[in-house]
């Protein structure tokens, strides 16, 4: 079925774009994997390769360790799963969760769902963007916090909600959001 298995599909334009995006933060994004990154990738492959439909669990396993999926790892993943590099690239690009460059040290995800909006989530999102001086999707200049939108955390009866590094916070208001942001800064 995979006529192009093992064939390297080079997308030079894409590679370049990723290099621009990462701001040169790590060696991985400029084409080679660091030792630790290589280890994470190989461990994920060893763990998930035999499973049917292994690509998502594999990508998650890499991102759980590294915080992102290094573009330089795509060829190796493709080879391991008998896919084309384009297919792997397509999957990484399709899902909102997968990042191709390192996020800030903390990730704050603000819910934009209707239930949170009904309790003032938009105002809180404006405030967070103002305080950090970045837009949703951006990372603060010091690399401390990445701000992301999220579409529902299932905390709709305790709205508005946000998630800081996997921990959900509910019934947020200006004061508690400020405290969250401050906490995110202090633990650096």
């Amino acid at each position: 079925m995979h006529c192009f298995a093992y064939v390297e599909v080079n997308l030079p334009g894409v590679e370049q774009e990723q290099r621009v995006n990462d701001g040169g933060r790590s060696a991985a994004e400029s084409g080679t994997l660091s030792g630790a990154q290589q280890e994470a990738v190989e461990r994920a492959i060893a763990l998930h390769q035999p499973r049917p439909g292994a690509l998502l669990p594999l990508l998650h396993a890499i991102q759980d360790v590294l915080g992102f999926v290094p573009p330089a790892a795509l060829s190796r993943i493709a080879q391991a799963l008998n896919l084309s590099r384009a297919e792997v690239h397509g999957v990484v690009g399709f899902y909102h969760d997968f990042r191709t460059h390192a996020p800030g040290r903390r990730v704050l995800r603000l819910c934009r769902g209707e239930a949170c909006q009904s309790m003032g989530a938009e105002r809180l999102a404006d405030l967070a963007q103002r305080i950090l001086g970045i837009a949703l999707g951006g990372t603060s200049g010091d690399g401390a916090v990445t701000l992301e939108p999220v579409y529902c955390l299932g905390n709709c009866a305790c709205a508005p909600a946000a998630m800081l590094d996997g921990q959900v916070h509910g019934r947020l208001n200006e004061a508690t959001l400020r405290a969250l942001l401050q906490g995110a800064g202090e633990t650096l």
Partner: protein
Amino acid sequence: MSTTVWVPRDTSAISVGAEDVARGIQAEAQRRGEAVRIRRNGSRGLYWLEPLIEVETPAGRIAYGPTAPGDVGSLFDAEFLAGGAHVLRHGPTETIPFLARQERLCFARMGVIDPLSIEDYVAHGGFTGLRTALAMSGTQIVQQVTDSGLRGRGGAAFPTGIKWKTVLDAPATPKYIVCNADEGDSGTFSDRMQMEGDPLALIEGMLIAGLAVGAEQGYVYIRSEYPLAERILTEAIELATRAGYLGESIAGSGKGFLLEVRRGAGAYICGEETALLESLEGKRGMVRYKPPLPALQGLFGKPTVVNNVITFASLPIILEKGAAFYRDYGMGRSRGTLPFQLAGNIKRGGLVEKAFGLTLRELLYDYGGGSATGRPIRAVQVGGPLGAFLPEKLFDTPLDYEAFAQVDGMIGHGGVVAFDDTVDMAHMARYAMEFCAIESCGKCTPCRIGSTRGVEVIDRIVADESRDKNLTLLQDLCETMLHGSLCALGGMTPFPVLSALKHFPEDFRKLASRRAA
């Protein structure tokens, strides 16, 4: 003798401080030399009272909430361990009106048991339905489910028994059971509660489905936004495997069933069943053309049952008590109960499991107590981001699949989001289009392009640019999306847009009105 205090281990309860309260009680008990055993339950679904702690007393479980770490000292002073009076005391949990008036079938054990105790689960009727199913043929199980009138709880409300019969009759093997736990609709959280508070019921339901259609492998596709639910469910699967309910021989029957949890990656579209299957196969979550139906060519091209968490979790009681017991709840063609979720700007938000047929107004006011802000409720969105916005004059509509369809609404997965009178409905209509643009899989043009054009057209209407022309254009665009989209995302995004336009037209002409004045 130590006193047992229950503190929910539930995402929402934890989001408002349940862990701190649990730690606080433990520390204070130690300081005072009191013997306290903290046990973790799911949430009762009385979310405005979370963190809601319960103390086991001879008179039953006594509820206190919403508690904060700062309340712990005064709770001990008030002898809450003996059920003592305190400003946060609500008496026996079961008598709190919000809970007492519900009809909890699917959620009967919710908040009552430790979700990770097989012993608790069995003591509260768990695995009785499975044992019944093990004594039946696949055809008999499917007949029971068909007779119960159960319809898919994910939102599409397709009769479960009919879907299962198609899979049962399909000759190809192997067959798969897939649970759609990609609960992406804003305003819904019943799947999350189920997985966090009573995951064994979901596992039991999937086992019953496997026995019914002859499948030996199941997958739960859970959204990545639910890390705690994923952890608890994974642990429950390990427990059930060790106890012999999952594995080579289900409860010693010789029939096998394996279950695996798979994590999504933040794509709303993967709640659409064919996109979910693509995602499970490791691909982009692109919607498939139907036919072929997933029941015939689903996961890896094999016959597949795809059902929502609540659909599966409703099965144990149907098998335990029989189809007629379940069918006796509800109205019209909507049989049984639905765990409705009251959310957004509402005073008493939470989970209300009731038979179909109660009205939206009862839900909003008798249960919800009106808006959280104390202002009038102006609009309600039922059924998630693709559901219509309903104005006050439609609040007497009974919650029934067909009655909602008649007012161009849908019950969907049972989420009810309330908005007070500060809401800008033109903004909400724009958001509906924006959400569709962000989440579209891109396979069909009406959804991929239409949603972006929709945002632009609404912007022009609000800016009072060629108003009439753009209103006609928006109507036309919605028609195209409604009839020309491949799946419900593009096909139903017009519902919130058109309903906002129909019921709240004044919000679309604020600038025009100001100019006219």
